[in-house]
């Protein structure tokens, strides 16, 4: 129900609106971008932060969580970025290009733009692109997102980010890692536009580091996967954070293309990874994986809508969740099949493992089908570790802790290994082990 009633703003909302008035002049953008920002701020004023009465946020009440809103982070000093990067341990010594976004702004001096140019990739500052006449198109929102509150927040406050273009036909030799660095407390609101040209290929790594204090991270990744192009993205949400981490993917997939993504949530706090995946060309594939691990009082939310607007596309959605203590896990997935999107093949699976009495899981695997010649399936399970399997291992002399770890590893690996990005897989499995080691 979206009754037109004036709401009573929470402190967090009031602070957000005050923040908008404060920073409005400083935020980059053309006239039309400014209009979009104002409209988004007006939406926030009218509807407030997304809360549990909004269906998409039923289990992740951002309004209740964001009791206060920190100011936007101010630009980072170079030595601080350097220090943060040298401490960063995301993918070990995996060969990769790096793009750095510090405190919400693209930092060319820490990024490998020159090397990328040689590899057929151009990198531009998102905030500069916003000031161009056609800057507003960079803030377009997908139809399936509706009036999404996170996207509106992003549009209102977006500070910077990058515009990455992979030239048609180019397969980028090394993965690109986009690192979000926080060098001081404060909110970071960014947006990255990644366009993979026709027939091109890119592996993308997204990492986040540093302490933002109570500030929120609101990052949007807008992928345009061209015809016959391939994009594989790995999103790693780990490390401590007091504020909410709000990630959004918008993926637009052309014809005969392949899109693959893994959203890995291992951090404490409030994390939401929401994805809007849209097929716009026929005969394309999307494989969307998610791994969530949460303990303490954390909330790990994986939400996605896959929109089969055209015929002959396949999508696979596999999500695994492990919850301990009184953590909460959320999975909300929906496959839309538009009228006439015949021969769609969709398969969605969400599985949760609850390790403690207080953990809670909410699964909502939805199908919305308007075409008659399609195959769509969905499944959901939740439960605890299988006693029989545990017994089997213990009977073979494996101590209980180790046996548990083994079973949890096996459970999560199903998704990580399906993702099938070898070097990345190893790093992520090591992360799972580290996470489990904390418990034991």
């Amino acid at each position, binding site marked *: *129900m979206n*009754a037109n009633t004036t709401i009573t703003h929470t402190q967090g909302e009031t602070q957000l609106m005050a923040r908008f008035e404060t920073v409005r002049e400083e935020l980059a953008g053309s006239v039309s971008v400014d209009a979009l920002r104002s409209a988004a701020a007006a939406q926030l004023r009218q509807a407030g932060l997304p809360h549990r009465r909004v*269906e998409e946020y039923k289990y992740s009440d951002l309004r209740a969580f964001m009791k206060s809103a920190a100011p936007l982070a101010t630009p980072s000093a170079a030595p601080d970025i350097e220090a943060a990067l040298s401490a960063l341990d995301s993918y070990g010594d995996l060969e990769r290009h790096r793009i750095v976004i510090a405190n919400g702004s693209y930092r060319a001096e820490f990024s490998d733009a020159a090397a990328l140019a040689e590899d057929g990739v151009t990198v531009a500052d998102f905030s500069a692109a916003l000031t161009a006449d056609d800057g507003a198109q960079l803030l377009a929102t997908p139809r399936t997102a509706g009036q999404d509150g996170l996207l509106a927040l992003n549009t209102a406050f977006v500070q910077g980010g990058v515009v990455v273009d992979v030239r048609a036909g180019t397969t980028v030799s090394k993965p690109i890692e986009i690192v979000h660095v926080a060098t001081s407390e404060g909110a970071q609101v960014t947006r990255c536009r990644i366009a993979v040209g026709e027939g091109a290929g890119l592996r993308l790594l997204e990492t986040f580091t540093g302490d933002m204090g109570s500030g929120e991270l609101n990052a949007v990744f807008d992928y345009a996967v061209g015809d016959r192009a391939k994009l594989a993205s790995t999103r790693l949400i780990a490390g401590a954070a007091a504020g909410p981490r709000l990630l959004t993917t918008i993926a637009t997939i052309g014809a005969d293309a392949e899109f693959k993504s893994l959203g890995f949530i291992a951090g404490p706090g409030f994390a939401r990874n929401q994805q809007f995946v849209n097929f716009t060309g026929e005969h394309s594939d999307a494989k969307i994986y998610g791994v969530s691990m949460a303990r303490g009082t954390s909330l790990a939310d994986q939400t996605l809508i896959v929109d089969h607007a055209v015929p002959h596309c396949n999508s696979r959605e596999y999500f695994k969740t492990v919850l301990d203590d009184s953590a909460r896990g959320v999975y909300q997935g929906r496959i839309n099949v538009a*009228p*006439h999107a015949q021969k769609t093949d969709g*398969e969605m699976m969400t599985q*949760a493992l*609850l*390790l*403690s*009495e*207080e*953990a*809670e*899981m*909410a*699964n*909502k*695997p*939805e*199908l*919305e*089908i*308007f*075409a*008659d*010649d*399609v*195959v*769509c*399936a*969905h*499944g*959901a*399970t*939740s*439960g*605890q570790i299988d006693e029989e399997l545990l017994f089997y291992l213990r009977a073979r002399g494996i101590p209980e802790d180790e046996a548990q770890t083994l079973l949890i590893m096996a459970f999560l690996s199903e998704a990580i290994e399906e993702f099938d990005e070898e070097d990345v897989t190893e790093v992520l499995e090591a992360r799972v082990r580290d996470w489990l080691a904390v418990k034991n």
Partner: protein
Amino acid sequence: MPAVQETIDQVKAIDVDQYKYGFVTEIESEKGAKGLSEETVRFLSAKKDEPEWMTEWRLDALRRFKTMLEPSWARVSYPDIDFDELYYWAAPKSVEGPKSLDEVDPELLATYEKLGIPLAEQEILAGVEPKNRVAVDAVFDSVSVVTTFKEELKKAGVIFCSISEAVREYPDLVKKYLGSVVPVTDNFYATLNSAVFSDGSFVYVPEGVRCPMELSTYFRINEQNTGQFERTLIIAEKGSYVSYLEGCTAPQRDENQLHAAVVELVALDDAEIKYSTVQNWYPGDKDGKGGIYNFVTKRGDCRGRNSKISWTQVETGSAITWKYPSCILRGDNSRGEFYSIAVSNGHQQVDSGTKMIHLGKNTSSRIISKGISAGVSQNTYRGLVSAHRKASNARNFTQCDSLLIGQDCGAHTVPYIESKNASAVFEHEATTSKISDDQMFYCLQRGLSEEEAVALIVNGFVKDVIQQLPMEFAVEAQKLISISLEGSVG
């Protein structure tokens, strides 16, 4: 894959323009004043000769109703209902108070005869007990016309009468249980129903009694512009068993009519209630004109240990269905079941499903739902399975499949699965991926073609659902049995 021809034919046979029960009974009828107001409620209450507490209960519900907003979350759309343009009371003039069969207006008897519901109590012939006798409570518009086999049931200790009669005759029971499963303010339509409910059945099965025959209620809407507000309350005391059937039809009219029912079931320790519905309200014509709005709140409370409530529904009628028969599994070891086949044709809109709320230890539930949509209809399964903190070892198995026939309809699945207990095991899945290789291999080995094998396995499965229906309704459901769900999507 698309639906097979056989299925298409089957669904066509029950298409909206094939509706058989669309005739109107010409009978002189008395209506209350139009509109929803305190006067309407008082008039209704007075008509039913209700005690003061009941009138107050209704008025309280009405006051609360006035503060509520109509829910909009279901995937159905319809023009705003003007509750002041409806009649809340309509009854055949010839019905005044409870009657014996001999006194019932022959016109009414003929109507039920025509609907295939003989109201005459079968005589026992030369000491031969007829099999499958069914006691019927016939509700015509706002009143119960007659209840059969009452005396015989009374001998067994079972109370089976209209709810109006129960309010007068068994006020203590009604006071104790009415609104205890579906609270007055549960939702918009339940609150409306609480204010203006007209008639329905009341069943009380005493401790340890196995109800000697099937009980059933047949709802018929006849009058124009009339809402029907059914209220049914079934109480199964410790260790008792009852099977209850419900059927519904309405004449073909151009206006939409409202049926807003509330059904409450209470099962105490070791009791079992089996509730079956064959819902065949007028679905509107092929252009979507007319038809019943079926906004129903049905809920069963497994209050006692080892109790069991089972819902079975075959839904083919109504322009709009908004219905979620649910089980609250409060008692330890209690069990809830939901079996449903919902077929939508023409312009029908179905938003139906169930809620299984696990509160007690070792509770289990099972949901089997089949949705078939054709024409330009929309068919949504919406369900909730939840395990609360203390629901250790709760188990749920859900299977919900849907099948689309044609390019202009839609089938949707919206399951909510909430687990707050680690030892709760929930599984939710769709069939297409579930025909096991072993079963297929077995059939192929024996010379069946792949298609035959799939049909055999899937049909066998649908029959499982149909078999949950008592004999008497199996006939009505027969035409649905052979529907193959081959080509179904999850």
